[in-house]
């Protein structure tokens, strides 16, 4: 198939960017979206132009590096996948495809389609851990039974890959699904409950400091999340935060 691409090009963080049109021809429907981008880049390199910079790494939907806003949706039109798992059979010959970087004030563009997600790092550093020494001299793993239900629910929350699609897709650029998932994972497990109150307060404070927007419960994040992280994690975070704040 032959396609027209409208791609955001931006030389650097402080430079103004714009959408640029490109044509790619003879694209196989079996290609992944990023392989189509590889074809374009090979084309650009061969003609002496600079290839389009985009983040990607594992190309199997787990590292969370890839981050494209394709035709108005985070990770493109398909559901429950990342950009690298999107295949060209989702498009038709002659289509025009808009490819933009994640947009959020807290995710500034570094170059072209690459954004800076350090804000997520700082939120995690504010409390996304259990304060246990890594000596291995903890108690035996089976000395603390955890209900299968809680473990499974914690696992569902922990499946977050930190790609930022929730922020990108949110009309308010809110990071609450990301933060809610981490808060939930630990809140659901007894190991995490010891410092649950401080954790939620610190992580939310950092989230606010980073300049993410407020959640207005549109639910878009849950739909676009490649790992299907549930909105119930945001509700749980709200609960945790309220009870932590009320306790003082």
């Amino acid at each position, binding site marked *: 198939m032959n396609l027209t691409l409208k791609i955001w090009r931006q030389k650097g963080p402080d430079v103004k960017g714009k959408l640029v049109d490109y044509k790619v021809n003879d694209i196989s429907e079996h290609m992944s979206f990023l392989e189509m981008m590889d074809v374009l880049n090979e084309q650009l390199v061969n003609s002496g132009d600079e290839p389009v910079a985009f983040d990607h790494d594992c190309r199997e939907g787990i590292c969370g590096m890839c981050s494209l806003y394709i035709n108005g949706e985070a990770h493109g039109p398909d559901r429950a996948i990342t950009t690298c798992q999107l295949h060209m059979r989702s498009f038709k010959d002659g289509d025009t495809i808009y490819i933009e970087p994640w947009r959020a004030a807290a995710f500034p563009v570094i170059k072209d389609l690459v954004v800076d997600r350090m804000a997520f790092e700082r939120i995690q550093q504010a409390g996304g851990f259990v304060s246990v020494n890594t000596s291995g001299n903890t108690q035996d793993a089976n000395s603390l039974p955890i209900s299968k239900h809680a473990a499974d629910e914690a696992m569902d929350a922990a499946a977050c890959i930190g790609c930022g699609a929730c922020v990108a897709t949110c009309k308010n650029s809110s990071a609450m699904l990301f933060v809610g998932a981490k808060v939930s994972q630990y809140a659901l497990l007894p190991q995490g409950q010891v410092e649950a109150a401080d954790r939620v307060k610190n992580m939310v404070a950092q989230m606010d400091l980073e*300049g993410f927007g407020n959640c207005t419960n549109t639910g878009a994040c849950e739909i676009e999340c490649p790992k299907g992280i549930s909105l119930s994690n945001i509700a*749980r975070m709200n609960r945790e935060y309220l009870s932590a704040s009320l306790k003082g």
Partner: protein
Amino acid sequence: MGILSSSIARKVAMALSALFLIFFLLMHVTINLISVCSAETFNMVSHFMGTNPIIQFVMQPVLIFGVVFHFVLGFVLEIKNRKAVGIKYAKNNGAANSTWTSRNMIYSGLVILAFIVLHFIDFWFPEINTKYILGDMSGLHDGEFRYYHELVEKFHSPIRVGAYVVAFVLLALHLLHGFQSAFQSMGMNNKYSKCVKNFGKWYAILIPLLFIFIALFHHFNH
């Protein structure tokens, strides 16, 4: 903003004020409905509401505060959120993942605000003027209670009724998202959530529909 400095505190505050206003709507529509059944009872209740000191000096200010708070915080959030977004997408397909109502609460809210201004001009300012500036606490006009008469009077104009209908349709849309959203904001997401959602849908449609019905009833019956 002190206690409202955190995003979650703000969203909870928004939810609490919303639930308060949702409850107020129920009360308001109940009283208005009386006007459909009996002019006399309506006059009685209206007079009670208009002259009872607890309602006038405790509940009324609380209500006004609630309304103003909900609006002001709504605007503050909107401004903050716009700032958080930064550059907009050249192409954004919001319909793919969320409802129109959830994405446009600010617009439905603005229409409701405009309506409230109209409502104040129509009822509240004259009421305050009569009662507290002119000092006439009798509630009488030409020897009869004036409330029912005033109500009917206002629904003569088709333009006003039209505006009234539009405002309540938007209120319905606002509530469609707002009702269940308030519960989610306060951290409720469990086996009852579905129930709350469904109830919210019915509430969001029924209450505005009743208001519209009352307006049309008086418009066409007099």
